[in-house]
């Protein structure tokens, strides 16, 4: 993960986020400057006229008029107008440059926000070239990616701060956003519209990689799950088909439900549970047995498996490379 603050957006890694950074620094600097100037003026004003030390009898200080004081307002407004107008123009220019989808889109993704995970569909001209994955999306560097955003249940917001600002995923409408990464790397994303109990645990990762690596990843994702050879794994697969298959899909098996995340290439992802755990065998076991303890309220029920069953299931899931 890049840097100490994975969601910090003042260090951008893509052109859409980068376009906003100078403007953000400008308004931030103007803001800090204004606060400092006003604080100094206030301090000086308090010092210069102060009617002697503490506990002065208020009646002893005569009331008078303040001639020529009105120019404070005139000068103050004139000075304020300059950064306001600059900000206004800069805002409109940046808005025009970043709002609409760019003309040369190299990849189209459909991202759907669910309580509390992200469904990612890679669109293709031929249906058999499209596939669905979850919570980790790969993009080629230096390519503009159009993201069509939908909400499956409630409103979520799609945010990968180092690549782009937020766009909500709203049920009943399709919102458009776009991303571009100039630097290869893993970029953390997070839901930023309050969506219920596990709003806090609704992360995603964007992996920006070279076009060759991206094509290799894409080709791998298109494959159905491999048939396992070992006896343990085969027992595990049967359990997955009959239990996990109620909600999850593993392409090439009987598990074909789309309620939860697609598991066909589960082990190709770095994290599980929309960012709550690393994708290790131990974490997987824990997640399967006690998802409700790790992510209370999530749609994944605790599975009361025997130790043997759990070991079989995890052994099978480990084959889903």
């Amino acid at each position, binding site marked *: 993960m890049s840097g100490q603050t994975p969601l910090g957006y003042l260090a951008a890694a893509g052109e859409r986020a980068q376009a906003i950074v100078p403007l953000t620094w400008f308004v931030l600097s103007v803001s800090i400057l204004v606060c400092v100037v006003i604080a100094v003026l206030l301090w000086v004003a308090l010092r210069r006229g102060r009617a002697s030390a503490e506990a002065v009898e208020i009646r002893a200080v005569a009331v008078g*008029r303040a001639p020529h004081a*009105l120019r404070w307002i005139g000068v103050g407004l004139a000075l304020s107008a300059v950064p306001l107008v600059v900000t206004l123009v800069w805002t409109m220019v940046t808005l025009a440059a970043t709002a609409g989808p760019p003309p040369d889109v190299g990849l189209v993704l459909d991202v759907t926000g669910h309580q509390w995970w992200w469904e990612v569909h890679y669109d293709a001209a031929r249906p058999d070239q499209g596939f669905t994955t979850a919570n980790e999306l790969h993009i080629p560097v230096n390519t503009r990616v159009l993201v069509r955003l939908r909400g499956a249940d409630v409103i979520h917001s799609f945010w990968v701060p180092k690549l782009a600002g937020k766009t*909500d995923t709203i049920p009943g409408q399709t919102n458009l956003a776009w991303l571009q990464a100039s630097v290869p790397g893993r970029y953390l994303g997070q839901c930023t519209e309050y969506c219920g109990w596990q709003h806090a645990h609704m992360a995603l990762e964007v992996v920006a990689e070279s076009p060759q690596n991206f094509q290799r990843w894409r080709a791998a994702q298109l494959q159905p799950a491999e048939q396992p050879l070992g006896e343990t794994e085969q027992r595990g697969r049967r359990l997955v088909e009959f239990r996990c298959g109620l909600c999850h899909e593993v392409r090439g098996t009987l598990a074909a439900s789309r309620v939860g995340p697609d598991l066909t290439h589960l082990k190709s992802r770095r994290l599980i549970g929309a960012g709550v755990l690393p994708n290790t065998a131990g974490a997987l076991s824990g997640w399967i047995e006690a998802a409700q303890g790790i992510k209370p309220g999530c749609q994944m029920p605790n599975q009361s498996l025997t130790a043997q069953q759990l070991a079989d299931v995890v052994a099978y899931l480990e084959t889903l490379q």
Partner: protein
Amino acid sequence: MNRGEDRTPALGSVSPALEQRLQELWEGEGGLKGVLSTVDHKKIGLRYIVTAFVFLLLGGIEALIMRLQLAGPDLRLLGPEQYDQLFSTHGMTMIFLYAGPVLSGFSNYLWPLMLGTRDMAFPRVNALSYWIYLAAGIFVYVGFLGGNGPNDGWFNYVPYANRDYSPGMGEDFYALGMVLLGTSTTLGAANFIVTAMRTRAPGMSINRVPILLWGTLTANVANLLVVPAVSLAFFLLWMDRQFGTHFFDVRAGGQPLLWQHLFWIFGHPWVYAIVLPAMAFVSDGLPVFCRRPLVGYPLVALSTVATMILGFGVWVHHMFATGLPALGMSFFSAASIAIVVPSAVAVFSWLATIWHGRPVVTTAFMFFASTIILFVLGGVSGFMTASVPVDWQLTDTYFVVAHLHYVLIGINVFPVVGALYFWFPKMTGRLLDERLGRWNFWLMFIGFNVGFLPMHLTGLLGMPRRVYTYGPDMGWNTLNLVTSIGAFILAVGIVLLLVNVLKSRRGGAPAGANPWDAHTLEWSIPSPPPPYNFAVIPAVASRHPLWEGYLDEELRSSLDRGLLLDQAKESLGTSPLDALPDMILRMPEDTVAPFVLTIGLGVLFAGLIAKSWGLALVGGIVLTAALVVWLWPRRELREREAVRG
């Protein structure tokens, strides 16, 4: 407000006999009946203030519990549902049950005293709007304490607020509670507007009124226009939830964004409604301690109104990430940037008043003066979020949480506490303790800034809002710990305020009529004021009736000699702009009708929440009966044509 006798009131001077007569006419009953039937704006105003402070404390406790949870990463003091109900109830409490009503309370108490009249225009409506506010507060807190608090934030977005995603009764309590509260706000708004237009002392033309009149009047005109939008939205939501209508139901063609528009078209003007009167405390209070009239009074008054007019056109800046067309958003962005201008007028006016004045430093002054810098801090962060592309990153992070707390604490709580130090002597006849006051101020000021200044950075480092916990590797740990420490320091400051109030209420130094040598009419009468406020109706000749000697004004106000109006419970009606005497107003006696009406309304809403139609019917009958008694024609209150010429 009713038109009374066709006579010309006599002129007279203040005398003990007159005061005795008025005392008998205006003094309410004692005992429980007196408590339930009073229509005295001073008692109602104080009730508003006390009730709002109780809600401030409740909301504060909720905040502290959340700050414990967020003090470190991955803490499990609270589960997600508890956290969600807490942050939602905290927002609802602070915004709806504290910030608005506390200002209504001060204006209720102060307006008739500042305007030189004897009560609000509609005293019984005034009582009614307080009782309904109390009922709405109790209603939603009954839900919360029973485990049915709102759990979708104060903004309550659909579809999450729909029954599919929020089963249980929390959202129903919230929806109906807000409809109830909307009734109170609307009644109060109408009362404020008529009071401002028709009951000012003769001579107090519209360019001579205290800024508090401009602030509260502007806020209430806005309330009258926008509260129906949110009441409607909540009512439609309740219909969706309970009767299967489809206003917000996506599957039947309903629109989630309809909720957001209805909510924010109310929500943003409401933000100004809960800061403009508080800014007016500063505009009216600061000059007293600076020993100078407010610099640029006409500009401050006009910018108050201008803020609200622009404020009607900025609501979409809460929705920049919802996928609206860029061209449409650019107008709202421009309006949100432009609104800095009228706000800046107030800041420069206050600064100039201090600069050219000879400030006498008191606790009230410190709260008012600190508001200036807190207002600027809250203002510039608002200006940053006004820029659409910048807001795409800032929105829904802790940056916005920091911003809104600088607005709501900086421009509401700080001036409100300042106002309490300033007007407490008028309300009780006792001064608040200044030594405790300094501790109170510095603890609040330091605690608040330690808590909320770093929060801007937390937001710039990407921490999203409304998360019940966060991971340890995000770079937010230290910042959150500091914020939690600051929040507790702020809380200690608030506790000191309570201690000061309780201690000084009986034991404080006697204040006298005008302890600050201030300039507005409320300081010309005893502290606390008698039930009739003014023995004779004063005639006002300038913006600073009590400073005319200092300022060598050519025309002098007449405070000890004026219209008598001592033949019944009467007050004076004047013309809207010039405040020329127009008619004698016959003021109503104390009555339990508003209280009984509220009981009926409460029972009706309890019936609705329980879907017990029998109970709702009983409530409706009580309500109607109270209305009939209230509105029953009475000879002495009959309407007449105004006598002109």
